[in-house]
Each structure stands twice: as C-alpha cells, then as structure tokens.
C-alpha cells in the first residue's frame, strides 16, 4: 500500500541543511495560528516585562550609586546608547538569519566555531549569573514580605541565614525550572497585570519619596541638581565605565521588542513603535525613581543612605518601609512577582541556546534532548537550574554581598556577549555595508560603534575589578572577587571548549554549522 509522509508545515530549517521541499497538505497553516496577534500595547507589555523594572531597579540602583554617585540619572541616559546601537545590529542579524536565534549561531556563522562557542558560553554564563541574582532577590523579598504580613521583623532576618537562604533559593529555582520544563508560559493577562502592578508601585514609591522630601521627613534630603544628568561629571573614567556596564544591565531585555516581527499585527511598524514606547516608559520611570531615591536617601553611608553597602544590593528592601509606610508590602509583592516571573522566563533562553549547541555538537548530544511530552529542552533546562543554584550557593558563602557582586559580574558578561554579537554583525555583513546608506548605518556604523563601546567598557571594568575594594569588597588573595569570578567563568569556558574539541571535533571543523557571510552563495 502507498505510504507517504507529508510534512504539513514548512518549519524553518537550520542554516546548515538545505531547505526541504514544502509539500503542504490540506491547507494547514504552517507556523502559528496566532501569528500576527500582538499589537502595539502587547509588544510594549512584553518589552517591559522582559526588562522587569522593579527587580532591575532594586538590584542596580545601589551598585550604580556606588560607582557614579549622583551622576546616576545621567549614566542611565547614556547607558542606553550602546544598548540601542547593538540592538539595531541584532535586528539586522535576525532579519538576515531568521533560522538562527542566539549569539551562538550568529557568532558561529560570522566568525567560525571558536568565537561562536565563546559567544554562546558568554550568554549561558550571563544567564546563570542573572538567574542566581533573580533568585537571591526573590528570597530576600519573600522573607521581607512575610515579615510585613505577620508584623514580625524577625522573619525578614531569616534571609540573612546562609543555609535558609540557600535552601529557599533552591526552592525558587526548582519551581521555575519545573515550570519551564513543563513548557508552561504566563498568559497575556498575567503579564499585563504584573507589568501594570510594577509600574503603579514604582510610581507610588517615587511620589511618596518626593513627598517625604517636600515635608522634610526624608532620610537625608539632597537638593535636586541638573548636574545629575551630566554623565561626564562621573568621578573617573573607571566609574563611568562601571556605570555604563550597569546601565546595560538595566536595559537588558529591551532588544526583544525590536525582534518581535512574526507575532506582531503589523511587522513593518509595530516592533519599532513598541520599542520606542517601551524605552520611553522605562526612561521616564528610571529617571523618576533614581532622582527620587537620590533626593530621599542621599549618597551618604548612613542607615538608609545609598552609599551604605549593606543596602546597595537590594535597595527597595531597605527603602520601601521608610518611604511607603504600611504600603511597603506592595513593593515587596511587586519585586517578588517581577523577579519570580523573570526567573521562570529567563530559564528559557539558556536552555534553548544549550539545546542548539547540543544539536550542532558544540555541546554533548544530551543537551539536544527534547522532552517528547512537553516539547521543551528538558536536559538543558535542568542543567541550567542546577548550575545556577550551585553558583548562587558558592557565591553566598564566598561573598559578603552576593547580589552586588553578581550584578557587577553580570555587567561584564553582558558586555562580552553583546560585544561579540555586535562584531559578528559587522563581520557577517562586510560585503554589503557600502551598498546603501541604510546598510552602512545599521549593519556597520551602529553595531561597530556599539561593539567598540562595549569592548572598552569590558576591558576597563575587568581591569578595575582586580582591585579588592571593587564591588562588595570581597577578595581572594588580594584580588577582587568580581575579577576572579569573571576570569574563572571565562577560563572554564575555554577549558570546556578544548575538552569538547578533543571529544567531538565535528563542530570545530565546521562540519555542523558553516561559517559564512551575507551574499555568500550557499
């Protein structure tokens, strides 16, 4: 009897394989019954929930003030520039290689296996670090919220107990990992509510802080100054570099809006408009919050001063109570929900990258396993969870301020993999950058400039972080913990890469993912 296999969908094929003939059957739609379903508001909401402003601000305000003091609002403004430049390059790569989806595939295609591998590694490491930070913030706010709920401040101190902290973190990571493994996603309505809630609470917080300033009840009122918006008044170039590195972290996730093409109702205009709207909202919010925090707390090292190292890793945990009074529990809820939701969704990225690396034999084949029931990258997801928790546990023991140190390490890692991707863009399009003004601007100038800024920031912060006083002041053998951490993570990557090369050289010989440039004949 006749038997035939009719693939009813023409799913994209990876770059290394020739496209299969599309033999659609029965008019079944290929990808996506929901294609084109997301409008301007939807993409903007997704953009804001990617950034997770409540979590981002509580984690980054302290380290930024530590680096640049009152210049924080100005740094937040200029810090957006490299992000914008790199994101423009990202979009070009995404349009040119729609089958690829990560720094790993892009960098491998542009630069070949070695840098491609390290680009993927940079992304995975950055994720592991941010996962541990997210979980850490969630743990702090969980106990803070319990304390507020039961009116028992003693409960908040439980987060300070290393073992309770590490075990609670394990629970958070395991739950997030499980949800990702099940392939479950937050529904649109949940996203809308979370985003609206974060925005309302942050506005509330800012206005309440300003009211305290006006009423003279602020902790250490600092008069507003226009100079705060001048980033070049930062104490030193090192401080400036550290500030920009942190600003990249605060806008991290914004680039997702630019690349949401397929899902949008009008792919020509919606992503661009949504990206603009998202950044306008985020800009306004960050400026408002940073100015009001500076005016309320000052930059001193007093109990609630932004210069106090004890509160820098998690600013809202310390400030929400004095600023918002009994309503501080709303802030706890906002940050907790924002970091828990982000924790869960952040598992997806590294798991998919590891899956792709497993598939192209850059990682052991087990990473390519897809759960037949949940259709998720099962093994990779579990590994991401185990490593993130292990990393957090080690850091919690080694560092006096795990949140500050992980955020600073994270800045370095993001600079690295964004930089690699930016240069990958320039190199991949090298044959066509002079064909039009648009190509010149978007495929050469923007990513080149963005990549160059990131490279300078990367080198500067890496050198500065050798100072034992950098970050939380944790050190090993007189060298700053942040530097050691970054170097260990990079060296571990190189070692693993060499081991992988020895065990299975196919990827490194270019057998699975070929190097190329745009306009190559494939």
């Amino acid at each position, binding site marked *: *009897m006749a*038997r035939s*296999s*009719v*693939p*009813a*969908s023409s*799913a*994209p*094929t*990876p770059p290394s394989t020739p496209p299969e003939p599309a033999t659609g*059957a*029965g008019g*079944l*739609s*290929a*990808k*996506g*019954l*929901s294609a084109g379903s997301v409008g301007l508001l939807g993409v903007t909401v997704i953009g804001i929930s*990617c*950034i*997770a402003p409540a979590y981002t601000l509580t984690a980054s305000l302290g380290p930024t003030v530590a680096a640049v003091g009152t210049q924080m609002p100005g740094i937040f403004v200029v810090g957006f520039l490299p992000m914008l430049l790199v994101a423009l390059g*990202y979009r070009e790569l*995404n349009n040119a290689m*729609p*089958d*690829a*989806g*990560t*720094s790993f595939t892009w960098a491998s295609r542009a630069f070949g296996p070695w840098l491609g591998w390290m680009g993927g590694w940079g*992304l995975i490491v*950055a*994720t592991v670090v*941010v996962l541990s930070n997210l979980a850490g913030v969630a743990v702090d706010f969980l106990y803070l919220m319990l304390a507020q709920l039961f009116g028992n401040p003693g409960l908040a101190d439980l987060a300070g107990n290393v073992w309770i902290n590490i075990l609670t973190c394990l629970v958070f990571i395991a739950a997030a990992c499980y949800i990702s493994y099940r*392939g479950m*996603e937050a529904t649109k309505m949940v996203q809308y509510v979370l985003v609206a809630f974060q925005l309302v609470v942050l506005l509330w917080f800012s206005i309440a802080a300003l009211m305290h300033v006006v009423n003279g009840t602020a902790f250490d009122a600092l008069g507003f100054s226009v100079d705060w918006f001048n980033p070049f008044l930062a104490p030193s170039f090192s401080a400036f570099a550290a500030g920009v590195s942190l600003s990249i972290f605060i806008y991290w*996730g914004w*680039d*997702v809006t630019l*690349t949401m093409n397929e*899902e949008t109702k009008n792919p020509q205009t919606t992503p661009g408009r949504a990206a603009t709207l998202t950044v306008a909202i985020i800009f306004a919010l960050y400026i408002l919050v940073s100015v009001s925090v500076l005016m309320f707390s000052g930059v001193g090292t007093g109990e609630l001063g932004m210069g106090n190292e004890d509160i820098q890793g998690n600013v809202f945990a310390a400030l929400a109570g004095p600023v918002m009074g009994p309503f501080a529990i709303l802030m706890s809820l906002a940050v907790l929900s924002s970091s828990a*939701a*982000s924790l869960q*969704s*952040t598992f*997806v*990225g*590294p798991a*998919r*990258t590891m*899956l*792709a690396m497993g*598939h192209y034999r850059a990682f052991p084949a087990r990473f*390519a396993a*897809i759960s*037949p*029931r949940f*259709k998720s*990258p099962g093994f990779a997801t579990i590994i991401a969870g185990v490593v993130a928790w292990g990393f957090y546990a080690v850091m919690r023991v080694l560092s006096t301020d795990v949140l500050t140190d992980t955020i600073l390490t994270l800045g370095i890692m993001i600079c690295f993999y964004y930089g690699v991707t930016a240069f990958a863009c320039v190199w991949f399009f090298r044959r066509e950058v002079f064909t039009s003004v648009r190509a010149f601007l978007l495929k050469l100038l923007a990513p080149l400039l963005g990549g160059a800024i990131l490279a300078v920031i990367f080198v500067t912060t890496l050198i500065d972080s050798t100072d034992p006083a950098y970050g939380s002041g944790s050190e090993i053998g007189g060298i700053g913990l942040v530097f050691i951490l970054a170097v260990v993570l990079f060296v571990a990557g190189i070692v693993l890469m060499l081991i992988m090369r020895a065990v299975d050289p196919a990827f490194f010989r270019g057998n699975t993912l070929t190097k190329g440039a745009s306009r190559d004949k494939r």
Partner: protein
Amino acid sequence: MTRVPNYVVAYEATPQGRDALELGTAMARLTRAELRICLVLQRAGGVPAKIYATSSDFEALLAKQAEQWLADALALVPTDVTATTHLLWADSTSEGLIQAVADLESDRLVVGAARGGILNRFTIGSVANALLHASPVPVALAPRGYKAGVQLTRITCALGTRTGWEALLDSLAAFTEGLTIDLRFVTLVEVDAAHEKHSAVADSAAHLDTVLTYHQRHARGGGVITTEVGTGTGVEAAVEALDWRPDEIAFVGSSRLAAPNRIFLGVTAHRMLHALPVPLVVVPATPARS
C-alpha cells in the same frame, strides 16, 4: 468513487501517543480508513526574558525532532494501513487537533487518554479532556498501555434512555456500514436495593427493544447483535458486571449539555471510563457527518 474515511491520530512520542496510534491502527484496519498521524507543537512565541531568546532557532530544531518522531511513528504502522504524517503548530494541542480535523476533513480523532492512571484504566489527560468537551467529530480514547488484537470483533454501544440516543446509533451505523462485526447494545442500571431492580431492568430491556428496531431499520452491516443490561450499585460496578473482550471497543453518546455537532462527555460516561477496560468512542450530540 467513494470517499475514503480518515482518522486523525493525536500523536506524541510517549506511551500515550503510542496507545493512540495502536487504537487508530485497529480502527482504520477495521473500516479501511486512512490515518493522519498529527503531532502538534506549540508556538514557542516571544518569551519575556532578559536573555534574548528568539523562538526561531529552537522552533527549527524542535520541528526537526518532531519530523523524526513522526517518522518513527509511521514505522510503527503496519503496511496494510495507509498513513500520512502531519506536523502542526498551534497555541494549544487540542486547538491544533481540532483544526487538523477540519483541514484534513477527518472523520474521527484518536487520542491516548491515560495520564498516570492506575491499573490500566482511564485517567483523562488534559488534552483528551479538552477534546472531550469540544471536538466536532467522535473522539476515540485509548486506555493506558492499549494493545489491539489482530482484528476488532465487537462493538458495545452504551445507551441511556434519555433523548439523543438516535444520534449515537446513527454514528454507529455510519461507522459499521458494510462491516461484519458483532454489536452489543447495553444499558447501565444503577440499583441500590433489590426490590427496585426488576422494574428498572425491565424498563431498560424495553428500551433496548426500541433501540434494536431503530438500528435494524437504519444500519447495514453483518454480525451478531446482542443486548444486555448491566446492573450494579454504581455505574462503575454496572460496567464491571458486563463481560469485555480484549478486542472490542465501546461507543457512547454525548451529554445533553453538548452544543450541536460537538461532543461533551457526560457524567455517566465519565464514570464509565473509571471502570472500562476497552477503548471508548464518544460521539457528538448530532452527527457531524452523515
């Protein structure tokens, strides 16, 4: 030339998926139908995370893996049954399957029902459950670890006395047209005390006569036709009181709550599932196709 019926098999590379394929194969062989083995993938979509995770890379690899799963499934189908494979993208598995039924003009949907149940009986999984309350065509549920014999030899049709049983009989007649297969019409009677038993059983037996007459007027097929009344203290016990062959399947109608042309698993049918050792086909309120 008459139309060749086709059945959508809700496949996934799991024991449940293989149960569905096993049942689909047995039913297709019986009725000389073709199989449309469908694997539904959910759109990965934009994930609101800081890490740039476009779905494209992952979707390409997922699709590749899914094609492999489908190829493996096709290899499980015996050569005397015609089967095609289809990879679909949808927001949810049940939506994708219902869309597939419409696009492929399928006559029924076969799904592995069990999810972590005990003792080889039915515990309805979420996909099967969604289909059982929305499908426009009959849904066949394969019990956990289902193994079909060489040939299905009997169909048991469980009927209530309320209105709507004609729809079930029409669907059954369409399914068995021209086939030689034994038919058994049963009613399930719940009895809590001995003295009520006789009247209820008598009513059921009378109803079965009506059913038999209706069936003989409308159906064209061969095979031995029997009737039986299952009694017990509950639906489960009534089901267990009947004998079940390993190579038979059961038919049941939809609840009166069902929208026209949609199936909706009724309370009694749901309770039947707890005790039923054979596959169950749930038929829409009014037949989707004549």
